[in-house]
């Protein structure tokens, strides 16, 4: 494909289509609305479907319903809508129905600053729904990465039968950059595992070697049950410990045993670095710039960008903390992912750089933290 000048939200919509998304349900909210607008136009021509629901609760419900019907499905929202989606995120995790939830973060709490960026939903994306549950959260820092991670979000959701959250921010969503999108046939696309057993042998929640049971769509002759209650291998409600405990073990194992696939991060000059700046999302842009400025001033600084923020890449951070004297964590919030870095690296090693007033963190601010 030829190079194009593209907005982050457009790249997200394009990535979704290339990944095979054929259903979108959403409710308008700045700064995510372009994703819905583009897909309302593009989906029908591909035989897909778009619907604007009455709220975000209904949007995610429809997405899960469509996924049960066999369509790859997505919704996109921002803080207030993301808050409303929490109950159904838990439902998707409990029922292991693949779906992608895009949250273009804006400054909160509440209506906050609707058109300003933030990274204030890091913890909500991990723990927003009630109860212990596995989840995957990816965070892009550029338009090209948005395209790529949207595809990955679909692939992970299908491969691991889990909701995946794409945590964007207003800067990445509305920024325009030159991108050279790959031809669709060059993009790796993963589909959910199908079963090869007859309906009477199919158990939608059975233990398998990969910990991910095959998922058959409704309407294909398998007639099984889905519920948000704890359930046995057939999907029927259960209160038996010998059925609840294996379920818990399996759904965490399917993520934790595949960390080498799921955890994505990029390092630059971290070897031998005394100070490592660890960042994600649009803040990673300022962070990399700051590290380059610092190195020009002969500071031994390195840069690490997280693309996967949940599950948290513990081992990578542990390794960085082992060699570096200090880890600088800039975030457009008052310290959320820094809590994880502190847990792994120790509080004394971490220097936070924060702001939650709707302004981006500048390279200068980060440079001060490196030098200070």
């Amino acid at each position, binding site marked *: 494909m030829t190079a194009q000048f593209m907005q982050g939200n457009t790249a997200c919509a394009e990535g979704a289509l290339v990944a095979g998304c054929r259903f979108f349900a959403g409710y308008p909210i700045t700064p995510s609305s372009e994703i819905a607008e583009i897909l309302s136009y593009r989906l029908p021509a591909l035989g897909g479907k778009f619907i604007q629901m009455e709220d975000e609760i209904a949007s995610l419900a429809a997405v899960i*319903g469509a996924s049960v019907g066999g369509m790859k499905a997505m919704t996109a929202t921002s803080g207030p809508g993301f808050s409303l989606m929490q109950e159904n995120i838990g439902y998707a995790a409990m029922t292991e129905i693949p779906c992608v939830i895009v949250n273009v973060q804006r400054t909160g709490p509440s209506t906050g600053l609707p058109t300003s960026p933030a990274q204030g939903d890091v913890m909500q994306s991990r723990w927003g729904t009630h109860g212990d549950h596995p989840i995957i959260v990816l965070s892009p820092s550029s338009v090209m990465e948005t395209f790529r991670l949207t595809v990955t979000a679909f692939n992970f959701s299908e491969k691991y039968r889990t909701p995946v959250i794409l945590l964007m921010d207003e800067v990445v969503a509305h920024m325009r950059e030159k991108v050279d999108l790959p031809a669709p046939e060059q993009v790796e696309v993963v589909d959910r595992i199908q079963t090869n057993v007859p309906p009477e042998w199919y158990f939608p929640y059975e233990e398998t070697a990969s910990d991910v049971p095959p998922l058959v769509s409704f309407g294909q002759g*398998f007639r099984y049950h889905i519920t948000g209650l704890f359930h046995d291998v057939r999907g029927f409600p259960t209160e038996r410990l010998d059925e609840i405990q294996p379920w818990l073990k399996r759904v965490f194992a399917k993520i934790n045993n595949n960390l080498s696939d799921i955890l994505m991060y990029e390092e630059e000059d971290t070897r031998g670095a005394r100070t490592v700046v660890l960042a994600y999302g649009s803040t990673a842009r300022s962070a990399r710039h700051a590290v380059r400025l610092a190195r020009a001033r002969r500071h031994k600084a390195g840069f690490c960008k997280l693309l996967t923020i949940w599950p948290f890449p513990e081992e990578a951070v542990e390794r960085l903390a082992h060699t570096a004297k200090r880890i600088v964590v800039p975030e457009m919030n008052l310290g959320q992912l820094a809590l994880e870095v502190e847990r792994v690296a120790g509080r004394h090693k971490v220097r936070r750089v924060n702001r939650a007033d709707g302004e981006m963190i500048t390279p200068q601010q980060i440079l001060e933290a490196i030098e200070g």
Partner: protein
Amino acid sequence: MHTELREKHEIYDYLRHSKKFPVMWCAGCGIGIVLGAIIRAIDRMGLDRDRVAMVSGIGCTGRMPVYVDFNTMHTTHGRALAFATGLKLARPDMYVLVVMGDGDALAIGGNHFIHAARRNMDLTAIVVNNNIYGMTGGQYSPTTPLHMRATTAPYGNIEPPFPLCELAKAAGASFVARSTVYHATELDRLIEQAIARRGFSVVEAVSYCHTTYGRLNRLGAAVDMMRWLKENSVTLAQAEKMSPEERETKIVRGILLDREGPGYVDLYDEIIRQAKAAENG
């Protein structure tokens, strides 16, 4: 002659026997009668059960799908219609039935109810109206009649109830009908017509909850409440002969609205056709 036997066999045939029975409903509850009516309707229509989905929210009524051998989904409280909307759009070839309690459909799910009706979404909504929140222990619901008691209305309910069928009609449904769990065979005929109709169809199955609402309001046991439904409901034809004041006190049974026309799925198919034509043209 042998219809009773045959019917028992039919229902047995549609139940899931790998599921641990008995059902979770209280002995004498009307919800099972609605389930029976749904099964009879589907059986009579000869629907391929692989193409039947039953989606529910949360509540005693919400537990209905687990017992039947269809594609079944027990979702979150109030949201069944929204889940069903996604499923129907992904699988337009399926018959998607949505079963809800009155709280599920009209309180927490009220917004989804009116919008599913407004869109004329091709779903069959069956609301079991027992005038109370059964599962949580008898709190008042949006259909609890005025002055009646509930565990959260110890002094009597001061909130006027929603007329479910009127709401569905006004919001844009294609088909709206009502019957009671006393009139079980009438109920299955109405459900059959509702499933056959394109667009959004609603059947209100008036039931009772003797263990909460009945007890709190001294309405007797299940049989007494059943008898009350028999004595206090009238057909549309009977209702037409009544004065408006008298009609107000009765449960009117029958088809309250039936209009033909395209549903949402038909209209969206047209959009797909246009979009594809534009792409190729």
